[in-house]
């Protein structure tokens, strides 16, 4: 795992709650807002399960800690998107909170329903970008959520040991988190793929 320069993190006291909101104007219309919200709720809860940080959705976009939206091309932050594929999304380090997804991608939450060869799994990208929002930079571990690339029509949503150790070094461990359950999951996964 790796951190941004200066190792920035959110510092909101001991029992930390970060709010997030979706842009009222910059969203996509081919996936319902409720489905998008469900996907993000799952992604946030994965990180919340390993660190003592809660994430709460609010309606007031301007006042949210984390601001989520879909944008096309040059959208004013100096990091223009580039159309289909290439760069999929980006997010800023703590405590900025901007979370931008490339509107030009074919976002999918169910590959059975979306047949496009260039479909990108929204949940995988959401989980990755939340890692940036929390202060993790890119990892060199291919299996980690924080690895920089993601192939179309593939999913990578489960945090790996590398992701967990990185974020816990920033925020500490969630008291309910057990390494054994993560290791058991990784072992069963490795066994399943015959490693």
């Amino acid at each position: 795992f790796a951190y941004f320069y200066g190792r920035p993190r959110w510092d909101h006291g001991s029992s930390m709650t970060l709010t997030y909101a979706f842009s009222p104007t910059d969203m996509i219309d081919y996936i319902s807002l409720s489905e998008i919200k469900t996907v993000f709720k799952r992604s946030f809860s994965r990180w919340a399960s390993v660190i003592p940080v809660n994430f709460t959705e609010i309606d007031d976009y301007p006042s949210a800690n984390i601001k989520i939206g879909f944008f096309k091309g040059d959208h004013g932050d100096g990091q223009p998107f580039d159309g289909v594929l290439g760069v999929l999304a980006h997010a800023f380090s703590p405590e900025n909170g901007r979370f931008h997804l490339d509107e030009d991608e074919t976002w999918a939450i169910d590959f059975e329903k979306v047949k496009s060869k260039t479909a990108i799994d929204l949940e995988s990208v959401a989980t990755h970008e939340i890692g940036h929002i929390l202060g993790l930079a890119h990892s060199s571990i291919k299996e980690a959520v924080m690895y920089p690339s993601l192939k179309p029509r593939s999913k990578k949503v489960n945090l790996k040991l590398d992701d967990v150790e990185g974020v816990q070094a920033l925020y500490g461990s969630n008291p309910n988190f057990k390494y054994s359950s993560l290791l058991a999951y990784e072992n069963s996964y490795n066994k399943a793929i015959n490693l």
Partner: protein
Amino acid sequence: RITPGQVTVITIDDQNATWYNFTRFKDAEKGCHISGMSELKKYFQRFGYLSIPNNQNDNFTDVFDAQFESAVILYQQKFGLPVTGKLDSETISTIMSPRCGVSDTESTIHATNH
């Protein structure tokens, strides 16, 4: 092998992917001069592997020079690829994969890795 009676289905996407096609640089190594390599150098600069040239009117050349070789090695290390310093097929394939727009190295100078 396709036997009589089998049907080949070709799926054609309704979208035009606009991502760079860097396949023509496959197998390039130090000393090569390939037209358009400056675009690949811009990609490396975009993600933090290469700094903007100082003495070349701010333009990258199409030459696979020592500085670019170092950038390729750094990229291969970061992505867990075999470190060859060349644009082998695995490296080209990784470069062309969709990715996050956050820089890999520029902002993580003092990163903690293990």
